[in-house]
């Protein structure tokens, strides 16, 4: 069924002078969608034309609506010669195809509206910059676009209208993830117009526009196909969506997208506590489920069914699958929440469980999750209680030689490449006893015809429900079973805590009440595998909090730090990089050279990373991002992350220095002292209180393992040799210097995660600036990358010096090696203003550890509490949880406290905010208005006149941001969250005075309301 698009061109302003003789322009507009084109009248001799056109109507298929951008081209009319193009506007219609937010299924009782016609957001209007690839922004045009969409329930339909895409790697604010359906991906291959024969005879403008148009279409098509996959899985949205263009040059362009299919339900604005009252099984789960059914009733179910049959026989049925399957088999569907049902079916001895069961589940993935091809999730933050254990980082890379893709319809080779990687990741995760990979991401780096593909994520055990854990633990070793046997006790603890305090105190907790910490908060850190059951060398120690579980000596993860993790002190940004020179060989031998070098590079990277963490006195790293870039002469790996000190993990041991030469003995001891002093200072700065108590009773590592056949399979595995640094040659000394790198200036809290762990008396009150730093230089060997990265960081701090006190969050590094001796480093980040939070938070924080330890000790002593003790413990424990949650919430957009410090929260924000984070401090995301993805190309033949390369790039990025803001505003938003810049490719030729730059940006358009002071 088609949709009807209505477009009205109202006016233009600030158009450029196209007719030199009269200093004016005779402008008109062409509006194009698919193959239909309309033209406005020519508005003579005006730089601010008023067209006030009729409504142009396009009747198009809804899949076309998703694929095709609306193209608005502003032209200058010439009587005697060909009309000149002024510029173009591309409008992505996808945001207009979304269901109006008010009509999304609401949790518990919003279903009445859902039966009505599929109404969409449907209007976009405003001034949009007219962009020309050769001249940049040339004026603006005022347009109104409306869409009337007729819902299509045809089961063979090609469109996926209504599936909302979120770039944000979190559950969107104001939504509740009712179901995680799993990983969705798609890949499309096409010819790159830049490399077609026709490019030799057409103008650069024509070629750039052909490219921009194509990229727009590919992006739309990709999203549509992924949407279809999400529908197939039963989801209504894709979160943590990321899209990437691989420009393979001669062999074409590959567009890749990955995301997580989920079923989202809108939370009611009323305090979530009321939902707890829905103790009735029926009301608990079914209304939302019903809404899903209403919306997507007529779907194909064959594939899903097939999956079920393939699945190993599970203890409990997979009710969701049935429930979703069609309207007709309602009768056979167990109506209630499957979980509650299965809880019951276990018939566990305690009454506590049923109580737990009555609580609303935050987001419960089904056990069919195991049956998914890839148990991957692309989110970085998960509802509390979702993650049971963290295994560690898993990553896989492959080096491929590009060749021309012969058949565009069957992009088999690229698909196969990624499939291989995903399978590898999956097997890694399984080998360490994990059932899922979180914060999964894929990256690629291309140089000439060699391509490095990387995939990484955090292996983890996720809790479908905790009975499930018990079941699965049966096939694990004794130690696991022991632990799981204890679980009911913990459940009891947190459960009571939940019912008493935290719930009442968090009426506006968006994620709904939780039965979160069904386990002691330290269990997340426990190893999901026994030390010797995996094919890796590992160091396991007893958990310092509960003394029961086993923990690794250092934990690396790509996810954000889960809420409620027991940690102390501040988090700190860690960056490590390694640069390897490559031989001067091409093609296959070049690829082999890279392939041979990769493991060494990765090993080195890991070693530096771990040592840096240790020098900081910390023991865990979150938000780990590793990016490998290949160039003609070198191979660069850069890893970034946010280090924290987790209580359950042992305190980091000091790296030891060794040297073969005895002559250096004195110097060595000096250095060792220097090192230990640095660690001490760092511990003070990051407020890491050493807990002497926890040191005792630790199991020493037993590393009798044989030669490792997979040296770098898991970054968290290699640990022993990391403690020892050899200082035999200058190269190693340099490493020492890295370790003792200077800290950011006072007043800066730098992390690469969304929140700053351990901000203590400060809290993030508002957004200050999203910044992009791009640096490119010609370097000669030795490249001394460290110096440049360090200098760049310093320059970022320096340029933001007026923002102190501030937090720099989500700091993203990217290294590109575009030419043989050129290196380009981009840093993207967000500066957030810090204010003073209420002092009570601090007070509470202080007494948080002791009760926790006490309670744990008691756990050791007697497993069965009498009620009296129990209660005391519960309150302390819940106090602890409570403290943690307030701590986090205070930083989240929910709270706006009276500020005393420099940065004050705002009541209103001027203009359009752009942030790479998924939240807006001091404000609340009210509505998600769709995601945008832009690909811009800018070319110039007068680099010198535009202020050199820097001037060219500077104005280009400025303009790109301006266009993004205009689109956000036209869609009715006032901010863009989860902003990304995945590409910034610059090619230039100085002597020809030419330059070309490509940028790929995007994010989620949102409307944010700012709180007035309380």
């Amino acid at each position, binding site marked *: 069924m088609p949709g009807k698009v209505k477009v009205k061109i109202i006016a233009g302003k*600030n158009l450029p002078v196209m007719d030199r003789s009269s200093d004016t322009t005779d402008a008109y507009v062409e509006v194009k969608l698919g193959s239909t084109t309309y033209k406005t009248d020519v508005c003579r001799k005006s730089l601010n034309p008023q067209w006030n056109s009729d409504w142009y109507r396009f009747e198009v298929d809804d899949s076309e609506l998703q694929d095709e951008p609306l193209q608005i081209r502003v032209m200058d009319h010439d009587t005697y010669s060909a009309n000149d193009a002024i510029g173009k506007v591309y409008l992505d219609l996808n945001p207009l195809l979304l269901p109006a937010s008010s009509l999304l299924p609401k949790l518990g009782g919003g279903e009445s509206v859902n039966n009505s016609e599929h109404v969409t957001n449907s209007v976009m209007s405003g*001034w949009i*910059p007219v962009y020309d690839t050769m001249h940049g*922004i040339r004026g*603006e045009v005022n347009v109104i676009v409306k869409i009337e969409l007729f819902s299509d329930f045809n089961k063979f339909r090609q469109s996926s209208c209504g599936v909302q895409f979120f770039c944000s790697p979190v559950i969107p604010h104001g939504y509740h993830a009712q179901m995680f359906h799993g990983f969705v991906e798609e890949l499309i291959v096409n010819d790159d117009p830049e490399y077609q024969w026709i490019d030799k005879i057409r103008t650069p403008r024509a070629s750039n526009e052909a490219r921009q148009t194509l990229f727009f279409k590919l992006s739309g098509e990709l999203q549509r196909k992924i949407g279809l996959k999400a529908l197939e899985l039963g989801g209504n949205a894709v979160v943590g969506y990321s899209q990437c263009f691989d420009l393979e040059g001669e062999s074409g362009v590959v567009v890749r997208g990955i995301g997580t299919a989920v079923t989202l339900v809108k939370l009611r604005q009323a305090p979530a506590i009321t939902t707890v009252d829905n103790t009735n099984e029926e009301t608990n789960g079914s209304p939302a489920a019903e809404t899903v059914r209403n919306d997507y009733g007529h779907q194909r179910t064959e594939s899903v069914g097939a999956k079920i049959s393939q699945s190993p026989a599970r203890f409990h049925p997979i009710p969701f699958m049935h429930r979703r399957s069609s309207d007709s088999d309602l009768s056979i569907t167990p109506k209630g929440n499957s979980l509650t049902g299965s809880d019951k079916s276990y018939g566990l001895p305690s009454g506590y469980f049923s109580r737990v069961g009555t609580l609303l589940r935050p987001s419960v993935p089904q056990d069919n999750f195991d049956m998914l091809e890839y148990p991957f999730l692309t989110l970085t933050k998960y509802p509390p209680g979702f993650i049971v254990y963290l295994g560690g980082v898993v990553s896989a890379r492959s080096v491929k030689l590009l060749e021309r893709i012969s058949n565009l319809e069957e992009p088999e080779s690229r698909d196969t490449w990624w499939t291989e990687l995903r399978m590898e990741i999956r097997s890694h995760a399984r080998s360490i006893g994990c059932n899922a990979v979180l914060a999964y991401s894929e990256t690629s780096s291309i140089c000439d015809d060699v391509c490095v593909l990387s995939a990484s994520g955090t292996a983890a055990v996720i809790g479908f429900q905790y009975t499930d854990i018990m079941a699965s633990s049966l096939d694990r070793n004794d130690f696991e079973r022991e632990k799981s046997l204890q679980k009911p006790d913990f459940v009891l603890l947190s459960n009571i805590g939940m019912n008493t305090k935290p719930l009442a105190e968090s009426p506006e907790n968006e994620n709904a009440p939780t039965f979160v910490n069904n386990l002691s908060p330290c269990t997340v850190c426990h190893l999901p595998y026994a030390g010797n059951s995996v094919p890796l060398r590992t160091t396991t120690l007893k958990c310092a909090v509960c003394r029961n579980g086993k923990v690794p000596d250092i934990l690396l993860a790509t996810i954000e730090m889960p809420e409620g993790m027991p940690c102390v002190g501040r988090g700190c940004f860690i960056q490590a990089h390694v640069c390897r020179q490559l031989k001067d060989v091409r093609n296959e031998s070049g690829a082999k050279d890279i392939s041979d070098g990769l493991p060494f590079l990765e090993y080195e990277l890991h070693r530096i990373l771990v040592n840096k963490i240790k020098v900081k006195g910390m023991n865990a790293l979150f938000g780990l991002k590793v990016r490998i870039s290949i160039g003609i002469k070198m191979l660069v790996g850069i890893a970034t992350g946010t280090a924290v000190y987790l209580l359950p993990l042992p305190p980091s041991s000091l790296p030891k220095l060794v040297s073969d030469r005895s002559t250096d003995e004195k110097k060595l001891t000096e250095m060792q002292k220097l090192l230990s002093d640095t660690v001490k200072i760092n511990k003070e700065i990051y407020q890491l209180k050493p807990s002497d108590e926890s040191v005792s009773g630790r199991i020493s590592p037993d590393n009798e393992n044989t030669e490792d056949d997979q040296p770098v399979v898991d970054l968290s595995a290699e640990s022993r040799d990391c403690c020892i640094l050899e200082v035999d040659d200058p190269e190693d000394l340099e490493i020492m210097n890295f370790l003792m790198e200077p800290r950011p*200036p006072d007043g800066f809290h730098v992390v690469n995660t969304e929140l700053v762990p351990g901000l203590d008396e400060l809290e993030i009150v508002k957004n200050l*600036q*999203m*910044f*992009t*730093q*791009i*640096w*490119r*230089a*010609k*370097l*000669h060997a030795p490249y001394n990358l460290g110096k440049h990265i360090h*200098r760049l960081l*310093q*320059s*970022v701090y*320096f*340029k933001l*010096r*007026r923002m102190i006190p501030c937090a720099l969050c989500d700091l993203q590094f990217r290294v590109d090696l575009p030419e043989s001796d*050129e290196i*380009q480093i981009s840093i993207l980040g967000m500066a957030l203003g810090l204010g003073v939070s209420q002092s009570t938070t601090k007070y509470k924080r202080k007494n948080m550890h002791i009760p926790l330890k006490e309670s744990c000790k008691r756990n050791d002593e007697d497993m069965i509490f009498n009620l009296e003790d129990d209660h005391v413990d519960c309150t302390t424990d819940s106090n602890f949880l409570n403290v943690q949650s307030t701590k986090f919430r205070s930083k989240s957009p929910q709270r706006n406290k009276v500020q005393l410090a420099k940065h004050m929260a705002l009541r209103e924000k*001027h*203009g*359009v*905010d*752009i942030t790479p984070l998924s939240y807006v401090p001091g404000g609340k995301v009210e509505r998600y208005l769709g995601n945008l993805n832009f690909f811009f190309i800018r070319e110039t033949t007068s680099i010198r006149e535009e*202020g050199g*390369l*820097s*001037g060219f*790039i*500077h*104005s280009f*990025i*400025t*303009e790109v*941001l*301006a266009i993004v*803001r*205009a689109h956000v505003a036209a869609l009715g938003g006032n901010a863009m969250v989860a902003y990304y810049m995945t590409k910034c490719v*610059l090619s230039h030729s100085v002597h020809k005075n030419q330059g070309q730059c490509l940028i790929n940006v995007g994010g989620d358009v949102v409307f944010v309301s700012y709180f007035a002071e309380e």
Partner: protein
Amino acid sequence: MCTEVDVFVTNYTLVDPDIYQLWIEGHPASEAVSILNQRGLGNATGASLELIASDVLDHYRTYSLLEKLLNNPSKLQEQLAFQIEPQTRQLLIEKYYEFDDSVIRELLGKKLSSKHRKDLDEVSEKTLVPLKSCRRQFDNIKRIFKIVEEMPGSLVQNIQKSFHLSEDLAKKYASIVFLACIRFETSKRKLQHLTFAALKQCTELVMDSWTYTSVGPEYLDTEMDKEFLLDLRELRVLMDKEKEHKHLVCVHLKPTLTQKIYTELDANFRTYSRAILTLATALHRARELRNLFLDLSQMVEVWKQSGWVCKDLERFLFAFYQCALEMDVLRELSELKATWDRYMTVVSKCLLVMYANQ
């Protein structure tokens, strides 16, 4: 190493008041870096010259991109390319349109033609203000002049509206525009000592009192009240009654002036009175009007040479004005009285300002 690109772009346009000021003052980037460093920026932040340079260049690039818009502040308000906080925007405009009195003083009375723009290096040399800044100031005046010259209504308000300037700054520009519209002579050697501030004060007085009092589309704020100037001729009667006038003034001033000054006044009353009244009767001729400040400064010169202090002049002028009102010729003709009133308030205040300035 050869850095090719080093840019730092933020969502909200970042403006550093110090660096912007240096840019406004026309310092090239390299100079700005060393100035900032000398001011202790490097010491305070531990930043190397290289870092400061990178920062300065970022800002300079932004400002040069903004310059086109600053030329048309209305556009700056509505443009989308730069997202600027309202208060920052105001700072940008206000600073951009700020000027050095010394430069403007040089430019006053010169034709705002491109020929003169080329000669700005002389101004730059003389005032020690960088050429770039001189050009900016020149262009600003020219632009504002062109826009508001023919605009009906209040000059100050027009400038404020068209250029989003503060009232203070708009008033300064109003004076400049007015001076340029009437083409007052200000650049003669004898007037060189007059500062812009003094000139501005005088001009404002003239603008306030001698232009059309009624408002409307047909009245321009930049035109003199022709009728008034013609009426001034009537003041010739005072010349005929000089004796009576002198007597009254002398009686009035005797107790307050020192003996020396009094004798001097007694002897030269005729010269002084003539000078003031001749000016009045000649002002309807455009040439004379243009030479207003020249004539006034000649008068000032005379008193200066006779050793008058400011207070003496003030007393004299007040008496001169007051006593004329007491004379029959003016008492009977209320219209003439008003003209006298209007004339003398401006002239005496101007004389005093110029006297103080000399």
